[in-house]
């Protein structure tokens, strides 16, 4: 029987509550949990502690299968965990979590406030080219976002995600969602040699070599064999596809003047609607030889694009490309955007039957179609990068899964905040 408080308990089990105490204005639930190995007990403890003053998840679902009447949405107001050293060494801890029921409790209304505009770009794209979207769990009910609901869906490792491209870029969406399905398609950050979800921003460990950023549709991890390179894989419908490795450098040749590793990983946002990490990078050769090099990676719920932003103190002619040569062709023209302007896609299907789409729109770039790379035309202290996937290769649904659709989604620079509202 599952007992979860937000993400805590979803992968490392929490024991059923031993006490549920109501007080004026709130309640306290106590669980005595045993987790093996003991190191996982500490990670589960961190997941609970991460909900204290958590700006990214102010409201969390609590699921109690042993007593379904308690299942609903709550606000975490406090967490107290007794960590007797002997008990912790055995993987045992007692957690008392203070909660407040939110308006609506078991069946509230969720509201996604979105703001957005055309991504400032150097390829001539205009607002009319934008395909903005709102991704939400397919099991949601009472969905409303103004215009008629679109019927696009995307498969994810958690279940179906509805992909609404109707409405305007800043339209607010509202829907109902049961607590058990709250994390379907959620943007998630994991850490550790055995990856476990991280809750909040503060309790991330100093481990820039074991992490994962995913929304069940696209997954980003560091390449284990080549520090500084990034692996990206996509959910193919039944399993994760074969990862593709990308590198960032200043020379067209992989391994020369490229990122050589990540010195730190900072969590910038850790919400179900979007998660963002910042990697501080080490480098070789003359690439960024002076100053800091940071790579931000953002994944939004429902998105099939890993959106990155490279920042350097010293301007460089940065390049993003496939670490293993994979020939590409230009993304087709659309609107006022010329074919290939800032975008390439694999020429042939990969082993999963899909094709990568590589984008960089905010500065003038040159495509290397032979090797699958995009390089800035001039030195700059920033480079925007979008890495998506045409799924299935050569036959993606227009505006949803085809290369032009991926590109149009990329220029929808949206930000989303989800909240619980009264019905």
């Amino acid at each position, binding site marked *: 029987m599952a007992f979860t408080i937000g993400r805590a308990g979803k992968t490392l089990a929490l024991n059923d509550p031993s006490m549920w105490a109501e007080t004026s204005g709130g309640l306290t639930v106590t669980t005595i949990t045993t987790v093996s190995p003991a190191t996982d007990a500490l990670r589960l403890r961190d997941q609970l502690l991460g909900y204290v003053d958590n700006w990214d998840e102010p409201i969390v679902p609590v699921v109690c299968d042993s007593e379904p009447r308690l299942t609903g949405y709550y606000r975490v107001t406090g967490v107290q965990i007794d960590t007797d050293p002997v008990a912790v060494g055995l993987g045992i801890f007692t957690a008392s979590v203070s909660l407040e029921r939110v308006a609506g409790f078991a069946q509230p209304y969720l509201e996604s406030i979105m*703001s*957005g505009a055309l991504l*400032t770009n150097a390829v001539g794209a205009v607002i009319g080219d934008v395909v903005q979207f709102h991704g939400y769990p397919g099991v949601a009910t009472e969905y409303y976002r103004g215009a008629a609901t679109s019927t696009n869906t995307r498969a994810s490792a958690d279940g179906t995600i509805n992909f609404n491209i109707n409405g305007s870029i800043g339209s607010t969406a509202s829907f109902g969602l049961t607590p058990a399905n709250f994390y379907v398609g959620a943007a998630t950050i994991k850490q550790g040699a055995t990856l476990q979800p991280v809750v909040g921003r503060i309790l991330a460990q100093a481990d820039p070599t074991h992490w994962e950023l995913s929304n069940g549709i696209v997954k980003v991890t560091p390449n284990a064999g080549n520090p500084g390179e990034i692996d990206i894989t996509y959910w193919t419908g039944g399993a994760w596809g074969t990862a593709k490795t990308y590198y960032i450098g200043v020379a067209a040749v992989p391994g020369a003047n490229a990122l050589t590793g990540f010195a730190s990983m900072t969590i*910038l*946002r850790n919400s179900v609607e*979007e998660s963002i990490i910042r990697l501080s990078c080490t480098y070789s050769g003359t690439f960024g030889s002076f100053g*800091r090099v940071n790579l*931000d990676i953002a994944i939004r719920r429902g998105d099939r694009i890993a959106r990155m932003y490279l*920042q350097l103190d010293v301007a460089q002619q940065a390049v993003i490309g496939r670490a293993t040569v994979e020939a590409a062709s230009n993304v087709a023209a659309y609107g006022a955007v010329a074919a290939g302007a800032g975008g390439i896609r694999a020429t042939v299907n990969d082993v999963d039957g899909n094709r990568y789409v590589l984008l960089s729109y905010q500065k003038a770039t040159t495509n290397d179609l032979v090797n699958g790379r995009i390089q800035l035309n001039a030195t700059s202290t920033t480079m925007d990068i979008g890495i998506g996937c045409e799924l299935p290769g050569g036959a993606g649904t227009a505006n949803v899964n085809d290369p032009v659709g991926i590109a149009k989604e990329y220029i929808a620079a949206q*930000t989303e905040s989800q909240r619980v509202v009264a019905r």
Partner: protein
Amino acid sequence: MSAGTFTVSLHAETPLAIVRDVIDQYGHIFTFDSSKVRAGLSDTTMQSLARWGGVVRLKSGGSSGVTVNPWNITGANMIVWLGDEDGKGPLLETAVTKAASTFATWMGSILPASVTSGTITAGGTTVANTYGGLAAGKTPVSPRQAIDNLASICGFEYRVTKSVVFDADLVGGTGLFKQTPVAVVMRRSSGRDQNVIGISTTELDLSVDSEEYVTRVLIQDAGGTWTGASGSATPYKDLLGNLIVMTKPVPSPMTPNANAATQAANLVAAGQVLRNAITLTSDEFDIDRDIVVGDYIYVYDQPLNLVDTTNPLRYRGNILYPMKVRVLAINWPIERGMSVWYRDKAAVWTDLTDYVEFEPAGVTLEVDAPTRPLTKFVNTKT
């Protein structure tokens, strides 16, 4: 620019030799953003290192029963050397008359000896007028009153620095304040990107009012003539469906008739926006490092609709759409980690840091829509 206020509280046990014999009216208090300032630095160096400076105008203390209260040293910022809130100061008893002259030219004749002329933008609207004088029909005004009138006509704004240097620039110019924000204030996120400073907020309050909204301004000039200027069409209507008429009369006896229309146009442009009064509270240390009164900053909060989709900003891996607003007032504490010195009339510096009752973190900023001119900015220090 307003004078604001500051208060430095000193322990009740502060030696009388300091609080009674050293600290005196019209001396100066300076704060530094480090806990220890090396002794023996020159007067000029100390002023340049200081984060902020003000003029002492009140010294108070006392006791409650057997308990001795802390001493409070209170004052205002350096603008009072141009004239205080009551119109006192180095009044222009000798009339200053000029033919059509620019703001910078006027400053050469109006600025008193108590301030130094700094960087003043040349050019702009010219004004032919007389300020001050004791003859019948004249009014001896303070330099600050005359400067405020000229600034209103010519579209200038100014500041008096901690070293009593007077700088002035056209409204919207980049000489005095940051027109392009480098700081963004938002809930739920903070931290320094390579190009943007995030100021975390612990509290964010918004009120929107139309109490100062105008559709037209009438200026009564020095000769008693009324001159009006109307703004752009208003979107608001009264109960009967008529477009509202909100005309504000502004007596301005120092304004020559030739400049009344320009001044009226400036005032109606500033007054034809709703006042988005945003109050932010932050625990940022020494916020003057990043933001000063008069700077523009970004404020972003989706639930409060503090969003401007024409303003994309890359910050913390995301693209935000913050509103650009102007800081009108900052209320900031003297926190442990800062130091406080007193400078007397003989330029002798005394370290008060060991006697200061430091305050808890908590900065409050008052910000507004970007067209509000610096006629009522306050830099308050408590």
